[in-house]
């Protein structure tokens, strides 16, 4: 269980983020009037995807065992 803790934390953080992101996108598309809210929703969605990919790449490149042995 403890071995899986970091991946559970990362997955939890990403799930929380996408729930919040969905709420932002829902509000912008559902209640926004005119073009600006739709463009903002599109930019937010694309930016969120890019940041998530960056996080996943950094996570995959991470060597936690090596890091802990370096620190302790």
């Amino acid at each position, binding site marked *: 269980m403890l071995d899986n803790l970091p991946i559970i934390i990362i997955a939890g953080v990403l799930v929380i983020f996408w729930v919040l992101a969905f709420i932002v996108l829902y509000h912008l598309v559902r209640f926004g*009037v005119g073009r*600006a809210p739709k463009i903002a929703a599109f930019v937010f969605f694309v930016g969120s995807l890019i940041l998530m990919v960056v*996080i996943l790449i950094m996570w995959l490149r991470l060597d936690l065992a090596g890091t802990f042995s370096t620190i302790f």
Partner: protein
Amino acid sequence: MFDFLTTTSYTFEDKKSYENVILFLYRHWFVLALQIAGFVIIGLIPIVISIALGMLFAVPKDLNSVLHLAYALFYLFWWFGLFYRITMYLLDYWIVTDHRIIDSEQHGFFNRTVAELNLAKIQDISVHIIGVIPTWLDYGNLEVQTAAATEKFFFKEIPHPQHVKDVIMDAHNVYIKAHPGDVETHV
């Protein structure tokens, strides 16, 4: 595919087929710019920490990759916070049509107030521009007093409030002339 970016311009829920939008107002851009500037400053924190750590210690490569992941997670929620503010800005708006005024304010997620006022109910309009920057950039509050005893409509931090006041008064006069006795002719 991207029709939704153009075809929804100034159409809103419950817009009558005979109704024309005269003004569509958000708060002044400077109000949003101030909030974005605050987020930009917050966004510099990881960069400052990274530079400071690099100057003070020789950070091991493994620890550096952990820090980079932490920075990326920080920026993910920073991105959310930035767009939360932009969302609140874009969902606070005031619409003046040739029949009514609509005040839509978003106070947070799932917390929304929408009020409307028939143009015939307008009694007087006042403009408040307070401060150096609002005076310089010409933005401020506009207050519409209605026929009801206490009810007031507030347009908050809108651009060119004096011009908006004139437009509303003109629309009010045209509406009164076109609707004698406040009877709606379009049904």
